[in-house]
């Protein structure tokens, strides 16, 4: 059986890495062009990254020590996996556009 939870965590860290690349690029541009547009881009990317960090924190809390909680988390892990993978695909496209 595929461990959806492990895959979801890998995907979440991948998202955080992709967002770091995006924020880095946006910050470099913001240093040269200071405007509502460049700061908006940085803010949006930073909030998305915060979202991913909170997702990781939330699911690691579920895995603390409660067995029952852990089992119910396993039962819905494929949904978290799907959410994170869709986000990874979207962010990969954005990184490709941003860095080319």
């Amino acid at each position, binding site marked *: 059986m595929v461990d959806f939870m492990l895959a979801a965590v890998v995907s979440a860290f991948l998202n955080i890495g992709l967002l770091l690349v995006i924020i880095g690029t946006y910050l*470099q541009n913001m240093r*040269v*062009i200071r405007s509502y547009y460049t700061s908006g881009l940085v803010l949006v990317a930073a909030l998305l990254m915060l979202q991913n960090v909170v997702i990781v924190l939330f699911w690691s809390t579920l895995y603390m020590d409660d067995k029952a909680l852990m089992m119910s988390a396993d039962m819905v892990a494929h949904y978290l996996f799907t959410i994170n993978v869709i986000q990874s695909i979207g962010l990969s496209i954005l990184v490709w556009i941003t860095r080319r």
Partner: protein
Amino acid sequence: MFATTIVFPVFSFSEIIPRNLFSFLGTDSEQSRQNHRFKMILWFIIAGTKGGINRAKILNLIKDTPMNANKIATVLNLDYKTVIHHVKILSKNELVTKAEKDYAAEYQLTQIMKENQNVLEEIMQKIGTN
């Protein structure tokens, strides 16, 4: 008896919401909506990509006189291959076109880019001051 008072917000929403926030809903003409979309595209290509600043400089350089890639590279002190790459991205996004000359292709702004040069100037001013 106490009369109930209704408390209104101390600020007015019209002050904090930008005037043309909902302009896409159709109060503006088709022309100005298209200009606004173009403005967003130009902002993204310049401010939202890795080589965006150099792309803005290239657009600014060739806005009056068409130039070939070699000359652009010399004037802006960039690598020739970098310029070719930027120009390729710019022409894929319909901001510059290639005009075949005797020996080298010259690049110039497209019609839509020429019509919206004020947006480019606005961005160039922001680059210049920082």
